[in-house]
């Protein structure tokens, strides 16, 4: 058996229990109770209102209010509309959805049922990242179980509501986590983000109104419906209620997932929950929310992990993937690794992103190798300016932010490379 994950609260409390992964075990812990009640006794509008009042923020990175997103869906017509669960978790530093998919598939299915009911979707797609083979297998088994039990298909739980769930596997591309690229890929096309408008709620999957929600977002829904918006708002901050799964990786003693209330201080997560940095070394910088989010220097770790506070520090919660780097880390080398990722994963559609990601990576690599100049460092900032907000999707922003933040907070590292013509960090390996 796998080592039990570290858990604290409602989303992950039972994730260590193998039985929780099957329908019987899930129901034994109170699973599907919210769906039983809501599908029969609550109108779709009531479900939507409850989630909206709960203030549930999307957990996929952008933090958009889930209930508000649902309200963009038009009234149901003869033609179908869709709910799409974004399980293409591919932000480096994020591994929360994997746990929810593999260890609590029915929790997600219950969330999907409730969300689909609220928005009037006839069918849901769970788009699972290609590398998550086990997650796809577990989800498919759960879907089959739910079908057999009458929790999916025609007349779910005798409520008159019919719903089907289709598990779809991606082919392994970071950009397919962007909701419109995901829709393209779902339709069997190349994963290129779409120009908006039209937004997915107007024209989404297969030209029909669609809502795309992250796995974790949907997993919160049964708990909100089961216990009410007020209960949900009793944890977290006023603007960012509820818990979330912080994934801590990098130079910490105890890397892993920690379900904690939103607003938990970053230093508490690193030093208490993740055990701090080993061997008496110090933190140099922390990426607070997955690779795209701007890095925070060691002096700014006393921030509460919620968007309203992180934004004051020039960063954001993103997917809650916390990457800790200790004082051995070469930040130029870090910029190389990050920029290489974005160069590899840019879909190539928009000129500024396609060319900008490559250009940044070329320059940063030169700086790391010792042939960079002071002008290069200025140019990097200019390139970031030319990319941010200049493209169809937010990928170019996601590629530019980390580089800009590394330059801002760790300019000395870059300057030293330029001055000395070499990378003098012992831990930095050959490119």
């Amino acid at each position, binding site marked *: 058996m796998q080592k039990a994950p570290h858990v604290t609260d409602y989303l992950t409390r039972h994730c260590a229990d193998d039985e929780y992964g099957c329908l019987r075990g899930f129901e034994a812990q109170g699973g599907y109770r919210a769906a039983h009640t809501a599908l029969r006794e609550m109108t779709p509008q009531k479900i939507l209102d409850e989630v909206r009042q709960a203030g549930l923020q999307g957990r996929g990175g952008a933090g958009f209010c889930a209930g508000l997103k649902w309200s963009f869906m038009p009234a149901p017509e003869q033609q179908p509309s869709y709910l799409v669960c974004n399980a293409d978790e591919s932000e480096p530093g994020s591994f929360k959805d994997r746990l929810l998919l593999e260890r609590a598939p029915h929790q997600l299915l219950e969330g999907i049922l409730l969300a689909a009911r609220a928005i009037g979707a006839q069918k849901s797609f769970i788009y699972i990242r290609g590398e998550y083979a086990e997650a796809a297998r577990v989800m498919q088994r759960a879907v089959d179980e739910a079908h057999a039990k009458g929790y999916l298909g025609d007349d779910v739980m005798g409520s008159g509501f019919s719903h089907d769930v289709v598990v779809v596997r991606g082919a392994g*591309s970071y*950009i397919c986590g962007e909701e419109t690229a995901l829709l393209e890929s779902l339709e069997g096309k*190349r994963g290129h983000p779409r*120009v908006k*408008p039209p937004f997915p709620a107007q024209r989404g999957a297969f030209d029909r109104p669609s809502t795309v929600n992250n796995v974790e977002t949907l997993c919160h829904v049964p708990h909100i419906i089961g216990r009410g918006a007020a209960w949900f708002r009793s944890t977290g901050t006023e603007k960012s209620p509820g818990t979330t799964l912080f994934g801590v990786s990098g130079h910490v003693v105890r890397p892993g997932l920690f379900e904690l209330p939103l607003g938990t201080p970053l230093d508490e997560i690193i030093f208490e929950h993740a055990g701090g940095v080993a061997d008496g070394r110090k933190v140099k910088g922390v990426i607070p929310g997955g690779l795209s989010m701007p890095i925070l220097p060691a002096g700014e770790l006393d921030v509460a992990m919620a968007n309203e506070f992180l934004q004051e520090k020039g960063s954001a919660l993103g997917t809650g993937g916390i990457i800790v780097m200790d004082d051995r880390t070469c930040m130029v080398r870090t910029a190389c690794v990050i920029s290489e990722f974005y*160069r*590899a*994963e*840019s*879909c*190539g*559609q*928009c*000129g*500024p992103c*396609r*060319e*900008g*990601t*490559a*250009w940044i990576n*070329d*320059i940063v690599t*030169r700086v790391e190798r010792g042939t960079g100049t002071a*002008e*290069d460092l200025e*140019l990097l900032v*200019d390139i970031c*300016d*030319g990319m941010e*907000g*200049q*493209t*169809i999707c937010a990928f170019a922003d996601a590629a530019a932010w980390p580089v800009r933040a590394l330059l801002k907070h760790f300019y000395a590292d870059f300057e030293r490379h330029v001055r000395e013509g070499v990378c003098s960090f012992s831990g930095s390996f050959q490119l």
Partner: protein
Amino acid sequence: MATAAGVACEAEIVRITVDGLEYRLHAGPSLLAALDQIGVLMGEVDIPHYCWHAKLSSDGSCRLCQVEIDGQTGLQTACNTPVRDGMIVHTRSEAVVRARQTVLEFLMLNHPLDCPVCDQAGECKLQDYAWRYGAPNSRSREPRRKLEKRIDLGPGVVLDRERCILCRRCVRFCREIPRTGELAVFGRGDRSVIGLFPGVQLDNAYSMNVVDLCPVGALTSRDFRCKARAWQLESVEGVCGGCARGCNIWLDVAKGEVQRYRPRRNDAVNDTWMCDAGRLSYAEIARSDRLDKAWIRNQESVLEPVSVASAISEAARMLAGLVAEKGAGVIAGIASPHATNEDLFAFKRLLDEIGTENSGLAVPHGEADELLICAEKAANATGARAIGFEDARSLLERIRGGGVDGIVILGHDILTAGYLDDETLLGKIDSVILIDTHQSSLMRVAQVVLPARHLAEKAGTLTNCDRRVQRVRPALAADSELLTEGEIVHRLALALGLNGFEAGYDLPRVSRSLAAAVPPFAGITIESLPSDGAQLVSDGGEKGAVR
């Protein structure tokens, strides 16, 4: 045709302001499409763009068409920002200028700058925009990407991947217009390249339109490659003679020869497209089998070259003799569907004044499709019918019956249309006078052969399959011995002393007579015809062309 922008919409008319000038246009479509609809885009309003094209779906990826709109934060791409009433747009603000510079710098990072050897130089949007909107220098120190320089995509098109800026117009064209979808982007990020799907070639009937669409020199025409520089070319408005569609074209001329045909936009006819067969048909102008002199069959029954004037006199002598001996009823004429309305009208008058009703028209047929290509493989069959020429089959019956002793034939369509297997039947006629642009086996039975100008060498009008009359202009200066069919028959009529033919051949006068004499042409004269043509007035009772 499915087009994103070209759809005429009933939408409300709104007012917007661009750089301080007010425009009234349709609400709904994107700013670029709406400005294009009223014909000011890239004229009065200058919004540079690569990926957007009036006849293709919107892509939004090149990011060059960004503009500033009052009340909206940041810049907006004009290609997918819908027009709204009262919108105030700035295309020259500091932010726009900077954004264009940035976009162009990105696109130029890996461009090979091989303009000196690039066919596109001189008509390249990357060159033009970099010059007009780009920063003077690149700040890049990185080596440029090395990619394949010559990939044969199909019989007509060559791809240079280094020059490509990935606007994907070619990809969208193949998917949306011929719907063949041969092309796609392969690879991701800065490894993205245009390519063919495995096992296919870019060989659809419209493949070479991607060369026109390509804003840079990535897709070049194999036919035109390295033949001429863009700045040496003089472009003349014309109409393709390959089929009854009459696609509007530019005839690009250099060194006294037509170097290529390119489609000319006409939303009522061919949008911005033309088929490959039509595009390559310019080669017939200078083909080695062009007729360039007149011939008369001598005493030994051998054709010998003579002046055009002598050939016309000889033809007149023959026809006059026959009329005097046997009456006008033994004279016949076969019209060419390649000739202009004016040529055909002059020919019709010749036959009428001689006093014969024996005439016919032979139209070659071939494959047709649902896009542009028509079954009738000539540009003016509709015009010929409107002027009064009917199918040649009954005339051929009359010839078989021995009722024809003299015939004037325009062109050799009677053979290519498959009405006759060979020239044998016509050999039974005493006097065959042939007026044609190219040599054919009809010359074996002709007593007089007169060379005629090609469509590229003359002025006139043509009537397409949708009864649209369109103008052609001479792109090439023809030899003085080379006359139009109209002028030849006019001189023949003068030599015959027929009524109503004034001394000099004057095209505008012929055109006015046509408008006055043939009801469908009422009001349509060569001098008043707009450059996008005009519809024939009514259905004159003749059958419409087979599309």
